[in-house]
C-alpha cells in the first residue's frame, strides 16, 4: 500500500431509507471522502446529517430490508469493494481490519457475558488464539485502555462497570485485533465531561501507538480539535466542508461551518446573544454582538432562598435493613429576581434532584425554600397549588416532556384552566397563540401534536407552557442539553430574551460548563449531593477555588484555534 492510496475511500455514497409511509428518505446524497492510513478524520454534523449512516454503511451494518444504496456508490477499503463484498469477506474484515465503537456502551455490550468473554471472543475469532492466551491478551488490552484492576475486571459484567469503564472495554474490544481503521461513532456523548476528556485522550494515544486510521464521528465540533487531522462537516446528507483541521477552524469556507463554530457558547466570551445559523446564511456578514455583563450585585431582590436542602432516598436491603442514599446534602443558595443561578455537576451530583425537590416533585427530607418569604416546602399541597404557577420547570428531554396524545392547544390551555387564567376558552386560546408567537412558533401549531415538531420546537412549546402561568422562577433542568448546538443557541437566546422582558429568574441546571457560563449570573458546583463551590460566574470560571471545579473546567474541550483563543492541550 502506497501512502498515496487511501485506506478507505468513499465515493459518491448515496443511501436512502424506505420510510414506513412508503416514501424514501435520502439520508446520504452522494458523499465522497478518503481516509488515509494513520490519519484521524472527524465527521461532524448535527443530528440527521447522515454521519452515523455513513459509518454504518462502511461497516455494512445498515438493515438490508429498508435501505437502498444508490447505484454508483462505492466504498473501497484497501482497494476492496465493500459494497459488493460477500458475507464471509465482510465478517473477516469486521473486527479485524475495521472496528467500531458505539455511542452507548451500556447497550452495546452484551449484558449477560463478562467483558472479558466479549473481548476474548473477538480475539479467538480473528487471531485464532487459544482461550487462555486470548484471556491474557484481553487483560493486557484492558490494562492498555486504562481500566483499573484489569485482572479482576476481566471477569466483570458490563453493568458492574461505570459508563467510562464500559467505553474503555468497547475500545479494548475494538483495538483487540489491531484494526487498520477504527470508527468511533459519538463515543463520548453519553459520558460526563471529565470522562469524555479521558476517553478522547485515550483514543488519541491509541491512534498514535497502533498507527490506526480513525473515523471520529461527533456532533460537537468542539471535541475534534483535540486530535483530528481532517474535519468533514456534514449537513442534511451532504458534505459542507472538508479540509485539514487547522483550515476548517481558522478559515471556514462554508457558512454552515462558520455558524457551527460560532453558535456554541464560549468560555471566554459572553455575547449578549448567541449567533444562530441563520445569521450566517444571510447575505450580510455576521456582526458579533456586544458582550453582556453578569453576576449578582448587592441589593438584588432575592426571590428564592433555599436553606439546608436535603433529600435522601431509601431502598430496602437485607432482611429488614434499609439503605439510605443521600442525593442532596445541605444545599443552600439564593436566587435573585431577574438573574440566573447555574448549577453544574456531573451525573449523579444531585443537581437535578435539587430542581425536582424545589418543585416538590420529590419530597424534601430537610431544609427550607423561602419563596417570597414563604417556605414552599412546608406548605400543604393545597397551599402549594397556588404557588405552583410561580415556579415552573422545563425538562431536559423535549421528546418526553410533552404529552404525546395532547395537541399543543391542550398542552397550553391545561395550566390556564387549572389556575384560572383567562376567563373563557377563547381568551385562553388567544393568550396561547400570543405565547406561541412569542416563543417563535406560528399560531397554527396549536392544532398539532408534539411528535410533529423538532426537538427545539418542542422545547419552545414547553417554555410557552410555563409562560402561560407567568412564573417568577423557571427551573431549566438540562433544558438545552439534548439539542443540537444551532438549536441550543436559539433556545438560549429565547430564554435570555424572556428574562430580559419578564424579569424571570432562572435556576439553570446543566452539565455543560460553557452553556452555564454563558447564561448564569452565579454558578454553583455540585459534587455527590453537596455544593463544593458557589460564586459569581465570572469569578468562578476565572478563579476556581475547589479542585473539583478546576478538574471540570480543565475537561472542557476547547482545543481548537479560534479567534483570540489559544488551544489548550
Amino acid at each position, binding site marked *: 500500500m502506497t501512502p498515496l492510496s487511501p485506506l478507505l475511500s468513499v465515493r459518491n455514497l448515496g443511501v436512502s431509507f424506505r420510510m414506513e409511509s412508503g416514501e424514501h428518505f435520502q439520508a446520504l446524497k452522494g458523499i465522497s471522502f478518503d481516509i488515509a492510513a494513520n490519519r484521524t478524520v472527524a465527521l461532524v454534523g448535527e443530528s440527521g446529517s447522515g454521519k452515523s449512516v455513513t459509518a454504518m454503511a462502511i461497516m455494512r451494518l445498515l438493515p438490508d430490508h429498508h435501505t437502498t444504496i444508490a447505484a454508483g456508490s462505492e466504498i473501497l477499503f484497501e482497494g476492496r469493494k465493500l459494497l459488493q463484498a460477500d458475507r464471509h469477506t465482510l465478517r473477516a474484515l469486521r*473486527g479485524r481490519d475495521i472496528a467500531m465503537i458505539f455511542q452507548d456502551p451500556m*447497550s452495546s455490550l*452484551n449484558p449477560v457475558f463478562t467483558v472479558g468473554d466479549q473481548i476474548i471472543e473477538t480475539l479467538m475469532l480473528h487471531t485464532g488464539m487459544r482461550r487462555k492466551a486470548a484471556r491474557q491478551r484481553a487483560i493486557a488490552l484492558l490494562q492498555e485502555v486504562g481500566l483499573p484492576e484489569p485482572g479482576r475486571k476481566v471477569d466483570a459484567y458490563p453493568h458492574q462497570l461505570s459508563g467510562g469503564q464500559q467505553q474503555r472495554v468497547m475500545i479494548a474490544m475494538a483495538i483487540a485485533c489491531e484494526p487498520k481503521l477504527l470508527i468511533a461513532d459519538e463515543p463520548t456523548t453519553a459520558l460526563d465531561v471529565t470522562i469524555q476528556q479521558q476517553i478522547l485522550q485515550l483514543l488519541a494515544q491509541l491512534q498514535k501507538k497502533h498507527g490506526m486510521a480513525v473515523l471520529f464521528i461527533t456532533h460537537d465540533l468542539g471535541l475534534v480539535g483535540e486530535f483530528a487531522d481532517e474535519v468533514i462537516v456534514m449537513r442534511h446528507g451532504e458534505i459542507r466542508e472538508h479540509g485539514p483541521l487547522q483550515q476548517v477552524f481558522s478559515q471556514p469556507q462554508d457558512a454552515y461551518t462558520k455558524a457551527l463554530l460560532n453558535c456554541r457558547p464560549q468560555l471566554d466570551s459572553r455575547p449578549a446573544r448567541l449567533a444562530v445559523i441563520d445569521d450566517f446564511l444571510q447575505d450580510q456578514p455576521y456582526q458579533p454582538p456586544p458582550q453582556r455583563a453578569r453576576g449578582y450585585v448587592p441589593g438584588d431582590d432575592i426571590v428564592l432562598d433555599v436553606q439546608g436542602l436535603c433529600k435522601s432516598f431509601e431502598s430496602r436491603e437485607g432482611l429488614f435493613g434499609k439503605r439510605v442514599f443521600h442525593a442532596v446534602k445541605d444545599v443552600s443558595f439564593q436566587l435573585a429576581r431577574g438573574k440566573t443561578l447555574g448549577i453544574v455537576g456531573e451525573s449523579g451530583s444531585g443537581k437535578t434532584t435539587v430542581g425536582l425537590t424545589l418543585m416538590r416533585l420529590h419530597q424534601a427530607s430537610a431544609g427550607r425554600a423561602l419563596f417570597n418569604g414563604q417556605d414552599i416546602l412546608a406548605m400543604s399541597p393545597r397551599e402549594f397549588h397556588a404557588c405552583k404557577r410561580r415556579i415552573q420547570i422545563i425538562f431536559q428531554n423535549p421528546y418526553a416532556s410533552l404529552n404525546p396524545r395532547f395537541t399543543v392547544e391542550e398542552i397550553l390551555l391545561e395550566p390556564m384552566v387549572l389556575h384560572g387564567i383567562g376567563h373563557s376558552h377563547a381568551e385562553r386560546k388567544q393568550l396561547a397563540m400570543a405565547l406561541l408567537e412569542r416563543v417563535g412558533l406560528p399560531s397554527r401549531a396549536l392544532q398539532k401534536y408534539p411528535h410533529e415538531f423538532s426537538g427545539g420546537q418542542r422545547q419552545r412549546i414547553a417554555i410557552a407552557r410555563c409562560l402561560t402561568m407567568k412564573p417568577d422562577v423557571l427551573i431549566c433542568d438540562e433544558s438545552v442539553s439534548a439539542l443540537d448546538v444551532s438549536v441550543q443557541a436559539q433556545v438560549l437566546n429565547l430564554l435570555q430574551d424572556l428574562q430580559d422582558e419578564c424579569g424571570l429568574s432562572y435556576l439553570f441546571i446543566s452539565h455543560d460548563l460553557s452553556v452555564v457560563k454563558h447564561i448564569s449570573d452565579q454558578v454553583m458546583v455540585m459534587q455527590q449531593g453537596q455544593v463544593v463551590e458557589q460564586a459569581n460566574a465570572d469569578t468562578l470560571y476565572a478563579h476556581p477555588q475547589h479542585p473539583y471545579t478546576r478538574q471540570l473546567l480543565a475537561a472542557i474541550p476547547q482545543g481548537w484555534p479560534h479567534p483570540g483563543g489559544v488551544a489548550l492541550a
Partner: protein
Amino acid sequence: MFAYILRRLWQMVPTLFGVMLLLFVLFNWVGGDPSYILAGKSFSADTLANIRHQLGLDQSLPQQFLIFVRQVLTLDFGISWSTQQPVAEILASRIGPSLTLALPMLLVSLLLSVIIAAIVAYVRGSLTDRIVTLICTLAMSVSALVYIIAGQYWLAHKLGWFPILGWSDSLATNLWYYIPLPLLLGLVVSLAPDIRFYRSCFIEEMGHDYVRTARAKGLSERTIMLKHVMRNALIPVVTSLMMSLPYLFLGALLLERFFGIPGMGNEVLNAVDRSDFPVIKAITIYVALATMLFNLLADIVYKLIDPRVQLK
C-alpha cells in the same frame, strides 16, 4: 442472597393468608353443603346435624377459619369429606400421574418451541417464518376441547393408533403406551402460543445494540443467534416457564378427564363437585405455595442468567 430469600419467604405469609381467606370465603359461602351428600337419599334432621357436627360445620366461622389456619400450618388437611381418605394420601397418589403427563409435555414443548422459535426468528420475514406464524395462529384458534374430542375419536378410535384411555402402575407403560396421545394433543395446544411468544422474545433481543456490536466484531449470524441472542432471550423464556410450573399440577384437566389419567385436575373437579372442602383446601394451598416458591425460584434463576438483576 440468603437475606433476600428469607425476606421473600417472609413476604409469602400475608399472601398465603390472603389465599386462605379467599378460599374460605369462597367455599364457605358457595361451596355447597357436603353433609347433604353424606346423608344419603333419606335422612333425618338429627343425622344432618350429626354430620355437620362431625365435619365441624356447626362451629362459628372464625373457629372454622382458625382450624383451617392450623391445618395449613401443620400441612395436615385431615381426611376427605367424601371418601374419608387422608387428603395427603389422595394428593400423593394424584401428583404422580399429573407429572407423568405434564413433565414430558413441558420438556418436549419447551425444546420444540425454543428450537422452532429460534429458527423462525432467524429467518424472520421470510416465507418460512410467515407460514410457521400462520400455522401457529391457526392452531391457537381451535379450542383445546376440539383437539381432545376429535383426537381421541379419530386417532385412537378410528385409526387405532393409540389406546382410547387408561393408566397403569408402571411408569414405562404409561410413558410409551398411555401418554403419547394426550401428550400429542397437549403439545398441539401448547406449542403454538409458545412458539409465538418465544419468537417475539428472540426478535426483540435481535433488535438490541449488542447484536450490532457482535456483527461489528465479525461474528457470524449463527453465533450471534445461538450465543448472544439465545442467552438473553432465555430470560423471558425461563420466567414464563417457571411461572407455568405450578399449573402443571392442574393444567391438563381436560386431558386427564378424557384419557382416564388419575391426576390432580380431575381430582379438583370431583372435589368441587362433591364439596370436598379438605381436598380443595389442600390442593389450593399447595398450588399457591408452589406458585409462590416458583416465583421466587424464577427470580433466582433470572439472577443466574442475567447478571444485571439485583435481588431486592
